[in-house]
């Protein structure tokens, strides 16, 4: 059994605001193995970006702070490192690319100057050598005429090319983990496909792991090996990509899949999830999803699986009164192992074993990559 490259253990991050402490990341645990792509998927504001930023300790320090947990890189807790040691990790062992290639590059420097800076921060090389590495990494990300592009400014490049330059910069020091925070959200569809294809190719060549933050299930389906679904600051489901798409267990994931338009299925109206994502300053009690959940309503209407009647309570959700299962309002379900390759946080999904101690970790590579099919 391999050791994970990065492990998050019960990571909680809080922000001090005028309305009190809000917790955008709560008890998040998962592991990334070398060479693996783990996707974190969820709606805006569910905490996925904050999770990514707090791995590198890039949360603006007041108001944000880590409330507890561990971030282990090769068993070494990043949260305990000095700022100086942390600088070596950032860009050196873990690199990050961002959503907006437009604004993540400094407008007053050329692409070359910025890549060279990233290189010289982590490697003891001469300036000439750094420029050679920069040119090579631009070529690696598929930029034609890298000699000329190195001398250009960000505003002279298209969005896709800027994101390629960002990737070149991130990969110039051969990191073992790349955090990609919605790397294709700001790009148009054809460029999106190119960039993701590029990431897959580079992953095959370098063996780096990727933490892919996205809200796009299509991107997940084509790129991820393992998926964590986040809702309201927590991971509610964690599984291999095949398991998750075959058999979503958490009602939120189920509802997400139902809300994807399908070409083959003819239906009069696209399914939506009623209500909206709760505000982190005002989370509902118990399971954070119960005000929007279809399963706890169904269970309240029908008797329990074992024939025992399910205790219910009446709540008002999204403006309409309804009956839901009592335990959903009373108790927040923990993330439990519900199958060999599956974790879910729902009262109605039976756990396979009593030992909840195992943190979500799956050393799994997808069998057929989309790139393999295409090639």
């Amino acid at each position, binding site marked *: 059994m391999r050791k994970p490259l990065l492990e998050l253990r019960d990571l909680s991050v809080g922000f001090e605001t005028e309305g009190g402490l809000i917790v955008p990341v709560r008890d998040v645990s998962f592991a990334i193995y070398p060479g693996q792509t783990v996707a974190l998927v969820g709606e805006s504001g569910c905490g996925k970006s904050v999770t990514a*930023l707090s791995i*590198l300790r*890039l949360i603006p320090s*007041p108001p944000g702070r880590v409330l507890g947990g561990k971030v282990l890189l090769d068993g070494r807790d990043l949260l305990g490192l000095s*700022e100086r040691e942390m*600088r*070596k*990790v*950032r*860009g*050196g062992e873990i*690199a*990050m690319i*961002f959503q*907006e290639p437009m*604004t*993540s*590059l*400094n*407008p*007053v*420097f*050329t692409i070359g100057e910025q890549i060279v*800076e*990233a290189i010289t*921060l*982590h490697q003891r090389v001469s300036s000439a050598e750094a420029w050679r590495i920069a040119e090579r990494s631009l070529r690696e990300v598929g930029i034609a005429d890298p000699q*000329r592009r190195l*001398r*250009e*400014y960000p505003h*002279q490049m298209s969005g896709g090319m800027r994101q390629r330059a*960002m990737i070149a*910069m*991130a990969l110039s020091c051969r990191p073992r983990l790349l*955090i990609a925070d919605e790397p294709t959200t700001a790009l148009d569809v054809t460029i999106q496909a190119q960039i993701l294809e590029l990431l897959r190719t580079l992953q095959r060549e370098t063996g780096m792991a990727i933490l892919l933050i996205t809200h796009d299930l299509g991107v997940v389906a084509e790129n991820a090996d393992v998926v964590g679904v986040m809702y309201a600051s927590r991971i509610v489901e964690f599984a291999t990509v095949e398991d998750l798409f075959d058999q979503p267990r958490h009602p939120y994931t189920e509802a997400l899949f139902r809300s994807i338009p399908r070409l083959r299925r003819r239906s009069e109206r696209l399914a939506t999830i009623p209500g909206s994502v709760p505000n982190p300053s005002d989370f509902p009690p118990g399971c954070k999803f119960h005000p929007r959940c279809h399963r706890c309503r169904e269970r309240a209407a029908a008797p329990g699986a074992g024939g025992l009647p399910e205790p219910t309570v009446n709540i008002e959700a999204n403006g309409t009164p309804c009956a839901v299962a009592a335990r959903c309002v009373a108790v927040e379900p923990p993330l439990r192992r519900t199958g060999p390759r599956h974790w879910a946080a729902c009262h109605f999904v039976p756990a396979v074993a009593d030992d909840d101690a195992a943190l979500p970790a799956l050393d799994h590579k997808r069998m057929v990559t989309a790139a393999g099919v295409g090639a």
Partner: protein
Amino acid sequence: MSTSAVSFASAAWDMAAPPRSLWRDAWARLRRNRLAKLCLAVVALYVVLALAGFTPHLQRAASEMRYDSYELPSWRAVGLWLGADHLGRSVLWRLLYGTRIALTVAVSACLISIFVGTTLGLIAGYFGRWIDSLVIWLFSTVNSVPAILLMIAMAYALQGFETLKDRLSGMPIVVLALGLTGWVGLCRLIRGEVMRHRERDYVVAARAAGAGHLRIMFRHILPNVFHLIIIDFSLGMVGCVQAEVALAFLGLGITDRPSWGRMIDDAKLELLRGVWWQVAAATAAIFILCLALNILGDALRDALDPRLRGTD
């Protein structure tokens, strides 16, 4: 078909365009402004004259009492083009020497105030919190005292140090007094701008690449706010030239060498006797320099302001 032709054309255009930096862009924009070019030439002329003031020849000529007291301007000799003062010294040569003093004072005072203002502004804007509060307190305090009073007080205070007095002639005192009072405006501007830039993605990206605070402040953010410094330099010079004159007029400026302020101070009583050329020459020199610097400062702002970029 047509779309591919268009994209091909734009690609061809892109290939032809040489990489343009922000600064080259701004320079091209500045060059299109005729008035700004003229003002730049005027300022350059002043700089050349100021440099000429460092030649011993001009220094001698400025203090030589070669002509009659209050000799009228005439074409008789080059030194008499602007007449002579009460001791028979050439007003023209003194004016040129005064250019050296004025520009030396203005440039050094501006450099001091830019250094102080930029450093404090960067630190306050970047780190925020109590450091920011401290800097705000500092510049509010400095700003609450009228600048001219502060300069006078500072000039007096600096002259008060007996040990310094011998080593510091008038000029360093004036430079320090101007430099240490003039940084507030720039500091405020830079602080605000840095606060904006601190939240930008490229700063987070630089942090994610492993850059430290100092590197981010000085290598990443400073170049992005540098246009403010250039504009402030141009406009701050105007303030310094005027303040130097005001201090000299009050007898606190440079007393041992011919400065424009001294010339106006000397000439204030002569005016009653109809001797107008000395005051006219000095005020004209100040007026033209300040006007040129002002227009240039505005043009620089137009050329460098990122919000106006790409509008033409």
